[in-house]
């Protein structure tokens, strides 16, 4: 337990080694450095998990980082049940992605850079989850954002990649601005940024109000919503979801690690971590739940019609993240974290599988140009199928248990919960449909790509398929730690997290629980069946439907025009203001007026003054002597 410090700092060391010596010395051996570090971290994380299971937690300040008046921040580490789970998720997925990347990134000219960034990201993410205060959390939060930026724009020669990186960064700023305000509010309210004292005295702020933008706002609601702003940005929830699909411009292992399994779930982690604040404010909880539910449905509908394999999976990620927020919003934080945990496995698997397909298709992303890949790459197919079954909530798979938990908790939470349940169940149908759409379109049927592509088709090398197999095992079995009592399980996962996030409230009968579960399963299986019907039997049906409901189809195809909306209401006005007001008036008239006026004035003055400067040394010396004379005289006779 005492070597927990190694968990984040080994990857940091690997980052420094790679960034300093990678280009010249290590070159194509870079992966050994990073892999060694992250695997060691994983081993220690597993040991740490067992110690936490054994009942030991750590909350220790390492050293004082900032002291400024009352403002004291330490670098410190908190390892409790929640952190332990996150450590496992982060280090496991990170290790597997490292291994996968050895094959996937082979021969890239930024090879060492890629592994350096992966290490830096792993360090940042671990710092985020291990922080024991809000500022360190914020540090990790921004650092993972930075790494995400680096890695989305990893192929920076590609304009779309660097644009996507910038977009991710800027969109996240909106959320992080709120998050920053939230941290400031916490400091103003509690006088400290450490979790323990903040959460310890959190009940003292119930009912207090604060003047915010001229409105009297309930203090817990304000803080919770500000913090949630950050979560919305980072976890790509409505309305800040636009960056995540574009982030698919990065290398696929990055999508798996950062934009599916770990970084984007930081928002869920944040909400779970701050659950003592959130539970104080029912309105904030409702906001969280509704945002999550709407996002889940919204992203799920978009995913139905997209053709880009990575984008479908990305919208699926947004949708699943919505589920997690939904769970948090109804007070079932452990269910949210549980889904986060299972989702990490099957979503990383989906991405890596997609990467494997891309590898075989020489970078082709359009599923309409694939087909029949099953016989060419059986391992990829079977693992991909496993992940899809898991995400669709087929009983027995990991996704089933976590999704069922969420839906049941939503239903049980009350009248609003029924609505949330309905949305969630509908989303489950959509999820199953679009997941199997990929399977049926890309892996079944006849190959529709070019001849060269068909010739090129091959199963990926072992270094890439082994991580797929490991993740497939996780996608199958990871959920077995949280089998609900209804099915004879012990809900171990929720019990384990209970010391941190408490138990979910709400009640319902066994009959209701059975009903919700069976409904969801039927919807999920129905989605699969529908997909099979549409894409295996009646392949023209999809086009017919799209033609019949062309308005809806176009709406979905264009992702509800959110990007265009932002372009109209934010980007263009900003450019207009920049061009006409800032450049035209402020810069052109005022600043240039000052900038040009000052030298003009100086020029006039100096053309007069320079008559003094004759270039004659004697005159200068005489003036000096005169000056000495005057100074001494003044001192003497004044």
């Amino acid at each position, binding site marked *: 337990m005492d070597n927990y410090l190694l968990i984040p700092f080994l990857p940091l060391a690997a980052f420094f080694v790679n960034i300093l010596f990678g280009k010249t010395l290590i070159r194509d051996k870079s992966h050994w450095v990073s892999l060694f570090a992250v695997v060691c971290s994983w081993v220690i994380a597993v040991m740490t998990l067992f110690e936490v299971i054994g009942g030991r937690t750590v909350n220790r300040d390492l050293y004082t980082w900032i002291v400024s008046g009352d403002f004291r921040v330490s670098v410190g580490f908190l390892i409790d049940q929640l952190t332990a789970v996150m450590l496992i998720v982060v280090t496991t997925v990170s290790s597997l992605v490292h291994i996968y990347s050895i094959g996937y990134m082979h021969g890239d000219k930024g090879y060492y850079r890629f592994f350096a960034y992966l290490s830096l990201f792993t360090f940042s993410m671990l710092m985020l989850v291990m922080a024991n205060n809000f500022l360190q959390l914020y540090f990790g939060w921004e650092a993972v954002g930075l790494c995400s930026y680096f890695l989305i724009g990893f192929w920076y020669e590609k304009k779309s990649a660097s644009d996507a990186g910038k977009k991710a960064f800027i969109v996240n700023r909106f959320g992080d601005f709120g998050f920053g305000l939230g941290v400031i509010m916490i400091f103003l309210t509690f006088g400290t940024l450490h979790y323990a004292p903040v959460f310890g005295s959190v009940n003292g702020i119930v009912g207090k109000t604060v003047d915010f933008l001229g409105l009297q706002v309930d203090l817990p609601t304000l803080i919770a919503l500000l913090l949630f702003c950050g979560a919305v940005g980072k976890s790509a929830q409505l309305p800040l979801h636009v960056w995540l699909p574009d982030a698919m411009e990065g290398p696929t292992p990055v999508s798996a690690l950062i934009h599916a399994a770990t970084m984007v779930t930081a928002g869920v982690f944040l909400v779970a971590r701050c659950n003592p604040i959130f539970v104080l404010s029912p309105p904030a909880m409702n906001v969280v739940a509704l945002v999550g539910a709407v996002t889940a449905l919204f992203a799920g509908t978009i995913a139905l019609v997209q053709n880009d394999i990575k984008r479908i999976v990305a919208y699926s990620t947004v949708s699943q993240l919505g589920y997690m927020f939904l769970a948090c919003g109804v007070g079932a934080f452990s269910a949210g974290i549980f889904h986060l945990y299972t989702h990490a496995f099957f979503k990383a698997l989906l991405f890596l599988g997609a990467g494997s397909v891309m590898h075989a298709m020489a970078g082709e992303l359009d599923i309409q140009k694939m087909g029949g890949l099953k016989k060419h790459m059986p391992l990829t197919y079977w693992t991909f199928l496993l992940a899809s079954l898991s995400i669709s909530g087929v009983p027995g798979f990991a996704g089933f248990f976590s999704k069922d938990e969420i839906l049941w908790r939503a239903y049980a939470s009350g009248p609003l919960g029924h609505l949330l349940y309905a949305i969630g169940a509908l989303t489950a149908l959509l999820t199953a449909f679009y997941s199997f759409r990929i399977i049926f379109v890309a892996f079944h049927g006849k190959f529709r790509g070019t001849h060269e592509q068909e010739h090129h088709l091959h199963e990926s090398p072992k270094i890439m398929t082994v991580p797929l197999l490991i993740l497939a095992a996780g996608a199958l079995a990871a959920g077995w730690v949280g089998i609900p009592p209804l099915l004879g399980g012990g809900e171990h996962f929720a019990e384990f997290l209970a010391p941190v996030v408490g138990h979910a409230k709400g009640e319902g009968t066994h009959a209701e629980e059975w009903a919700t579960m069976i409904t969801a399963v039927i919807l999920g299986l129905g989605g699969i069946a529908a997909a099979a019907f549409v894409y295996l039997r009646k392949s023209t049906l999809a086009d017919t439907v799209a033609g019949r409901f062309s308005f809806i189809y176009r709406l979905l195809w264009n992702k509800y025009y959110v990007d265009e909306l932002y372009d109209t209401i934010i980007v263009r006005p900003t450019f207009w203001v920049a061009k006409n007001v800032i450049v035209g008036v402020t810069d052109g008239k005022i600043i240039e007026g000052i900038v040009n006026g000052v030298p003009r004035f100086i020029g006039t003055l100096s053309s007069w003054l320079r008559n003094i400067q004759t270039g004659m040394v*004697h005159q200068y010396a*005489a003036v000096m*002597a*005169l000056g*000495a*004379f005057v100074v*001494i*005289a003044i*001192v*003497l006779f004044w």
Partner: protein
Amino acid sequence: MMAEGIFIYLAAAIVILSVLVITRSNPVHSMITMLVLFFHIAALYVTLNAEFLAAIQVIVYAGAILVLFLFVVLLLNLKEEMVARRYIGPWPLGVLAALGLLVVIVLSLKSFIPGPSGVFTTEVVRAETNTKVLGQILFTEYLYPFEVVSMILLVAIIGAIVLAKKRLRN
């Protein structure tokens, strides 16, 4: 009496020599006058128990700085200098300014208040020898300025080379 006598001789010689230095038309003669002047100043230092500085005065000022001057003078065109005007046009003004300065400085001497006495009395210095005492102070209290001075000298060496070097072709 003896000490006063020596001082008066040295002072008179120093003043006269310095006037000669600035009035000779031939710079080489000025140099030689200056050389003699430096010796008198060194002697004055000896009467003030500063033997080390007296030696340094001769070694550095007479032996190095003045030789440099001499070199430069010899490199320049002296023929023209001998026949050219010695002083600037309005030289009486310069003299007047200098005299005015002399007056105020001398007047200011009246209000001179000596500071507190230190520990290095003549006896202490004589027992330890001037050089050792100076070295002890220089390498403890004034070590940092000492290092700075060495840097200044290094910079001066480089600067002098850069400035005086002939422009290289192309």
